[in-house]
């Protein structure tokens, strides 16, 4: 009988947070069904089958004890193979955050192996992980966003300081810094910050602005959650930091927030409308969290987390959804069909028949 596997971890700055999401998802599924496997992707990129009811502590020193090493074969009918046999998986719940698990790399590998999985496909994942490309797509879709540019040494951007600089690729708040002016940002760029090495994007930093988040899911129908306003602590850094988000004790689901956010009706409608449009253009699938920035009565689209922390289940308060219900719907959506189908239309042999000898083509 085919089973379900939750995949988490991965060589990413959000490796640890992904373990938390993955273990929560595995536990929620185990409450509803017994055919659940857990696959841990280590920091160094290796695969292990672990017990789905482990606690986070088991991962503190690395690969948990009693894990079984798995091989991954990216060929049709491939997938994960243990010492004795191939894991027969109907759906993979992708609980990876950041890095190759959320940027399309893993999705592409699953596609090659013919595996069905939750979350965005390779193209959607790659787009939402690339802040520069995503900003461009949002502008093309006519959505309100703050202007964004690649940080380079060719001169200041045409929007005003102060600036906030973020890694171009990356989903977490790690590597985000605020600068008084362009020169400071460039001086920092010259020191080669590790997370900026694949590029960094620069935006105007709006002191006093706050975040508004909404979750969207695509199955059984397109639905939006309540809108959340995360609460920054009084002693907080200028940005909603990694520590605030995740180190509060219970992870993201336990962070301080105003839910639903007390915002004007009209603002709420605007957010719902742009979240809907974005879902269509950005390849959102399963569940995603869309983050907005608010200053006064202005709201801008900021970014999309295509595999959000704790799968953003805590935002579904009306009607209330448990993580198990959310996952059940994600799994049935993924089971319906592959997220990507390759096409060979046109490759019907005509060109091969018409071709002469290869050697002559090199002539």
């Amino acid at each position: 009988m085919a089973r379900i596997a939750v995949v988490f971890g991965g060589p990413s700055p959000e490796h640890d947070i992904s373990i938390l999401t993955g273990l929560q998802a595995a536990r929620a599924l185990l409450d509803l069904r017994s055919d659940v496997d857990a696959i841990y992707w280590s920091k160094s990129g290796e695969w292990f089958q672990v017990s789905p009811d482990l606690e986070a502590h088991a991962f503190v020193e690395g690969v948990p004890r009693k894990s079984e090493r798995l091989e991954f074969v990216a060929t049709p009918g491939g997938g994960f193979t243990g010492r004795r046999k191939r894991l027969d998986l109907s759906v993979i719940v992708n609980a990876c955050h950041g890095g190759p698990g959320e940027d399309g790399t893993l999705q592409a590998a699953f596609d090659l192996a013919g595996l069905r999985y939750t979350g965005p496909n390779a193209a959607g994942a790659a787009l939402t992980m690339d802040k520069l490309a995503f900003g461009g797509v949002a502008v093309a879709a006519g959505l309100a966003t703050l202007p964004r540019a690649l940080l380079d040494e060719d001169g200041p951007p045409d929007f005003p300081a102060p600036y906030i600089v973020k890694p171009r690729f990356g989903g977490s708040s790690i590597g985000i810094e605020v600068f008084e002016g362009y020169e400071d940002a460039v001086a920092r760029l010259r020191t080669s910050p590790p997370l900026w090495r694949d590029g960094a994007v620069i935006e105007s930093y709006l002191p006093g602005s706050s975040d508004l988040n909404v979750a969207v899911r695509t199955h059984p129908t397109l639905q939006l959650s309540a809108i959340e306003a995360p609460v920054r602590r009084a002693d907080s850094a200028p940005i909603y930091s990694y520590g605030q988000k995740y180190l509060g004790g219970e992870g993201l689901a336990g962070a301080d927030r105003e839910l639903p956010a007390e915002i004007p009706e009209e603002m709420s409608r605007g957010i719902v409308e742009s979240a809907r449009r974005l879902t269509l253009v950005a390849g959102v699938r399963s569940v995603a969290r869309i983050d907005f920035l608010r200053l006064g009565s202005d709201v801008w689209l900021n970014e999309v987390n295509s595999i959000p922390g704790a799968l953003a289940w805590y935002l579904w308060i009306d009607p209330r959804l448990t993580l198990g219900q959310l996952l059940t719907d994600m799994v049935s959506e993924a089971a319906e069909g592959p997220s990507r189908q390759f096409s060979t239309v046109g490759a019907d042999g005509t060109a091969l028949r018409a071709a002469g000898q290869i050697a002559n083509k090199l002539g």
Partner: protein
Amino acid sequence: MNLEWLLYFPAGGAAVLAGLRWLRVAQREHYIPGSVTRITSYWIGSSAANALMVLAGASAAAISLWIPWVGLFVFAQVALWPLGLSIRGRTSPLRWTRRLSTLAVVSGAILVLLTASAAQLGISPALYVAGGFLIVDAALLITRPIERRIGRKYVRQAQEKLERVRPVVVAVTGSYGKTSTKEYIRHLLSGDHQVVASPASFNNTPGLARAVNEHLVPGTDVFVAEMGAYGPGEIAEMCAWIKPSIGVITAIGPVHLERFRTLERTAKAKGEILSGCETGVVNADEPLLAPIAASFVERGGKLIRCSTKDLEAEVCVLSVDGGLEVRVGGEPIGTLEGSPGFPMNIACAVGVAMALNTQPWLAAKLLATLPAVEHRQNVTTNPKGVVVIDDSYNSNPAGAAAALQLLVRQSREGSRRVVVTPGMVEMGRLQHEANREFAAQAARAATDLVIVGLTNRRALLEGAMGGGADVLQLRTREHATAWAREHLGPGDVILYENDLPDHYP
């Protein structure tokens, strides 16, 4: 009819019960041969009851040479002794790993061999069953080369990975301050390097091999390896395969003196870390390290001296009014408010950042957000308003003295200042004196001294005599926290200085 063969049943039962205890001790003591005997000696002296049991057991074992049935008394003693050391373990339970199973099998084989040869000679089993701890220590000695060979596979894997990833390796050692310094290095380099640091408990060859195999991801620029040493030659052995280019020595102190014997030998063993390095980052306030630093420079090494007082040193972290001032090459690069950490550890971390060309302004920016290191002079206020200083992982006199100063600084007029401690261990012949001295300081600085456990009870009681503090003796750390919950209120300060796992008395 001779029924003496029946004695083998209780003998076996007693041997298994005692064996499990000593196996757990061996596991907790990192499988170092001799460690089981050392812990046994703590237990013999831990209480009158335990000492009396040993005396009675030993006499009975002797008598059993003539009257075999007296052995039954010995087996009862072996099965129960020492009072207070549980088989399963409370803080650190026995874990059946592959290595422990090997040790158990070899220990069992020794026991069987002894039984066979003793039976030939007509010697009662009481004699060797009583020395079970020696059997486990012997098994540790025998299995060591086998374990080394098994470990070599992982070391080879790690070596291959290091060659593939090619990070700059920074190796950190010292009698104390290693973990904090390593954390600070990781933090100060994080602005311009992809850094991976070895986890705290991974500071020997098998641990570092695992850290490399599991934690060193492709794309890492710098790997920070913490290296602990229980004896001479161990650091050289680790450096031989991990090949650091920057070596850091944080401090020399009386830790693991039972193996090193003298502080000079300790310094020399720590100095091994510099042998293949291009750059050495060294505590310049420690006179014992001066000859090691000098010979490193003679060999052409680049030395970065770190100090907390010498303004001429390449890096100097000075205590100034309300905080610390960090100087590089004599120039102040930044100040830190309050007491964010031990100044020498910060100085060594800044030294490494300078060796790797981190811009001083970037280092200064990161210094402002230096992370608090868990269980190392961590100050928090609990919901009741009691200030808690957690220094549970410290086990050296200098750190303990600094923690006492912190205790005084955190307290207000009229508030209670409590020190909870089991004392410090692994200090060889200096242990009694060091604990006595610490208790004397604590009794002056604190209003209450809570002595936990029996390991250092006598030395601590001696030291506390004549000081102003009320002295309380409790069995475990849990008893101490329960006492604190009941007796302390808002504004009171409590310092947890060192903690010992439950295989210590």
